[in-house]
Every structure is written in C-alpha cells, then in structure tokens.
C-alpha cells in the first residue's frame, strides 16, 4: 500500500511569489493533516481535514495560507504571497476515522528567498 505522498519535494521561490504544495493521503484515509517545521523550531500543527471539511485550522499562521481538499481526496496548501519566514518543511499526515496514529509523508522543503 502506498504511503502519504507529497509534491514537490523541494521548492525554491522568491518572496512575494505563490507556491502550492500537494498532499495525497493514504487511500481511504478520511483524516488529513498539515504540519510544518520552520527553521530551529519543532513540528507544529497547521490544520486538520475530515474528508473535504476543515475540522480544525487553529494552527494556520495567517491568511496568506489557504488549504483545500476538494472531493475529500488530495489536499493542497497554497502560500500567497510567500514571506521569508515561511521557509521550512511542510508535512502532510493522514489516518483513518477513529484512529489516533497519524502517518506522515516525506515533506516538502520550502525555501523563500
């Protein structure tokens, strides 16, 4: 069974540009999560989808970040416009409804110059 996949693995953009990250969860997983680790800090929760609905977006840093999960399958996380402090690694995770264990993807390393 394929694990959580993320695309791209790396992205380098200039301040002010837009970047869209994609996450494909494990097939059948209704729960999808976004986390990120910015330089020097711990991994922090951004938001949680149940199918296509945002269940908890308390970790989203500001309105430059927009997450979507149309159709309840894959998810995108758009940063517009990107700022220097957005640099870091963005992780996606998924799990089945009712399960506590989250399975993580390899992450997307975002560098904003």
């Amino acid at each position, binding site marked *: 069974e394929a694990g*959580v996949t*993320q695309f791209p693995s790396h992205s380098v953009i200039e301040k002010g540009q837009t970047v869209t990250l994609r996450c494909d969860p494990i097939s059948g997983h209704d*729960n999808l*999560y976004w*986390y990120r*680790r910015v*330089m*020097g*800090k*711990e*991994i*922090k*929760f951004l938001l*949680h989808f149940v199918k296509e609905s945002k*269940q*908890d977006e*308390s*970790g989203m840093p500001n309105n430059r970040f927009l997450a979507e999960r149309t159709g309840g399958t894959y998810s995108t996380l758009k940063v517009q416009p990107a700022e220097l402090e957005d640099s870091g*690694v963005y*992780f996606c995770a998924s799990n089945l409804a009712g399960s*506590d*264990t*989250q*399975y*993580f*993807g*390899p*992450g997307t*390393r975002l560098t904003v110059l």
Partner: protein
Amino acid sequence: GESVGLHLPTLSVQEGDNSIINCAYSNSASDYFIWYKQESGKGPQFIIDIRSNMDKRQGQRVTVLLNKTVKHLSLQIAATQPGDSAVYFCAEGRSGTYKYIFGTGTRLKVLA
C-alpha cells in the same frame, strides 16, 4: 538535510548498546503518546505509541515508558544498530482533538 539550522540535543551511543531517549510533554490532559523516527530526507515514521492508561509498552527492540506524574516519556532501543541513527520525536495527543504536539527532537548517533 532537513535539520540544518535546527540545534537538536544529540545522543551518541556505541553500536550494540542500549539507547534511552527522553521527552517531557506539556499537557497533562494528553492521553496518547507516540514516538516517531525521522531519517534524513524522509518524513516521521511511526515507531510505537502508548495510551495514558499504561506505563509501559514494548515493541520489537523498543520500549516506551510513560510517567504521568512528572509528564515524562522515554524511548528505549535495545542493541542499537547503525540503522537506528536518526532524529527521534515524541508527540502527544488528546482523544477527540487529533492534533499532535511535538517535542523538539533528539538526534541519535550510533558509533561503530
């Protein structure tokens, strides 16, 4: 690698010795705890978990101990191997909330 710029505590262990990685968690209401292993260029991989109604849980070569009194979690790795070299994260969660709170991580280096 992904951890450039991230100053992690490091544990160096001789191959074949046992490793103990410690973690202090923050929320006394947390009732689910997980250890993840992250190798360079990869995402966190699940190792073992424990619920708050247990003090100890064993897996293959790994044991997790939970001390709720002092909010402390530890991961013991028996007979540490070179393939165990990685960054280890603890995470805490609470039933019904789904989001994890991660610790800062510990880098384990296995010396040949």
